[in-house]
């Protein structure tokens, strides 16, 4: 029956991994803010067993050299309170606090944030039959129906569902790395290689095997002297998902941008690193013309439907505005 499941509280990581890996109908449960909604309220997910991992010792933040190691069960509010972000990655805090609300950020974990499911309203509504992400091969109602909060980059004719995380935008700009435990041991996965583009299998969202558990996210911090910022453009001032967003970090030395990082939210089927924009910026002096050139380089061959066409120009202006703010 939909909405019922066996509840298991795991005591250690190995036992949790063994339990979920050995049962295709089992899922991990952490903060639950997306998952409980999709199971109990929307009826989209129907696991037979939930393995509660919230008591596992995967909480806390530490510095390892020039990198921040964040336990997967650290909450969004806990990470936002980390003092080192002030000087070494301000855009991570800005993105965290731009997401959801204090109540949700007290529940939602960093590992879960990476794995949050799309807000595509067709995916979240089982009364809509066509959703390749929910039911592979059934079609995509978003491409033919009204769609506004959808992706324009990384999309395919099979799916335009957006990855709605704010946090992942600066994390992908920072070259963060995912630590995962599986039955075959531990491995690390660069966040830029963690997500799968939808292609013709939008139901496959990342490279984790079933039962593989995110244990930590490790992110390099910005070099001393670099500045960063996150701008989120949305329909209301707070508690709303992005139409477009940009995470930017710049190191400006002697009037020249010697390091540049640009990533985009609200536009991609995955958190979108705009490497081409960074190449335009590096080695030049900050200015509106080069910022616009970088924005043009960031948005190439967008996949739009009538409801999302406005995002092409909005995303470019979001990039320019964020660059201007950070360079100021």
């Amino acid at each position, binding site marked *: *029956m939909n*909405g*019922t*499941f*066996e*509840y*298991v*509280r*795991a*005591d250690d990581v190995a*036992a949790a991994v063994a339990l979920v890996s050995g049962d295709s109908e089992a899922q991990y*449960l952490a903060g*639950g*803010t997306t998952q*409980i*909604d999709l*199971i*109990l*309220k929307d009826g989209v997910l129907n696991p*037979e067993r*939930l393995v*509660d991992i*919230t008591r596992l010792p995967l909480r806390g933040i530490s510095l390892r050299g020039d990198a921040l190691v964040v336990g997967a069960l650290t909450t969004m*509010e806990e990470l936002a309170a980390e003092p080192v972000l002030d000087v070494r990655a301000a855009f991570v805090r800005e993105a965290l606090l731009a997401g*959801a*609300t*204090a*109540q*949700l950020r*007290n*529940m939602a974990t960093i590992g879960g944030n990476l794995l949050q499911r799309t807000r595509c309203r067709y995916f979240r509504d089982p009364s809509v039959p066509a959703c390749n992400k929910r039911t592979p091969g059934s079609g995509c109602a978003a491409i033919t129906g009204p769609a506004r909060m959808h992706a324009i980059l990384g999309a395919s004719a099979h799916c335009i569902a957006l990855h709605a995380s704010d946090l992942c935008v600066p994390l992908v700009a920072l070259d963060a790395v995912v630590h995962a435990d599986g039955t075959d041991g531990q491995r690390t996965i660069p966040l830029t290689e963690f997500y799968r583009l939808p292609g013709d299998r939008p139901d496959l969202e990342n490279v984790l095997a079933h039962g593989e558990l995110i244990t930590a996210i490790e992110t390099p911090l910005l070099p001393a002297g670099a500045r960063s910022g996150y701008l989120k453009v949305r329909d209301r*001032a*707070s*508690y709303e998902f992005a139409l477009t967003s940009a995470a930017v970090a710049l190191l400006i030395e002697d009037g020249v941008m010697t390091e540049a990082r640009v990533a985009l939210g609200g536009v991609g089927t995955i958190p979108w690193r705009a490497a081409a924009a960074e190449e335009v910026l590096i080695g030049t002096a900050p200015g509106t013309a080069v910022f616009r050139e970088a924005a043009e380089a960031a948005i190439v061959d967008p996949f739009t439907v009538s409801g999302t066409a406005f995002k092409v120009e909005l995303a470019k202006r979001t990039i320019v505005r964020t660059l201007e703010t950070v360079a100021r």
Partner: protein
Amino acid sequence: MIAVASQSLLALTTSVNGAAYELRVASHETLLDALRDRLGLTGTKKGCDQGACGACTVLVDGRRVLSCLMLAAQCECREVTTIEGLASDGELHPVQEAFVRHDALQCGYCTPGQIMSAVALLAEGRAGSDAEIREFMSGNLCRCGAYPNNVAAIGEVAGR
């Protein structure tokens, strides 16, 4: 490790408003439903029941959370505080008093969630300005539009 089948009830030990409870809850039962239907603590409201409105806001170990998106089973050995737990010895909590004084409600349905959220916001130190109060209260919707009075009430308790 504990495991409870979907058909049977789970034994849960938890603290609500300072009192210890031994409950039996379903594996899929939310904290919101357990508070209202098993403990009779109906001050916590079911608004959207989907994490969008904030009416079900309670404190778990002192932090504000949405009880509609939290399983009761996850509250084993946690300390839950609801609106019923704010007053002490018949005296309203300062935030409750301020809401009354500022007429910070109309229909009152969202009010328990607003007050629980405000109590947490003050503890978080996020009442530095009206703008900050608005931003960090944005998870609590009020369809009557009592927001200006909410902000005034919270600002007063913050000593501004």
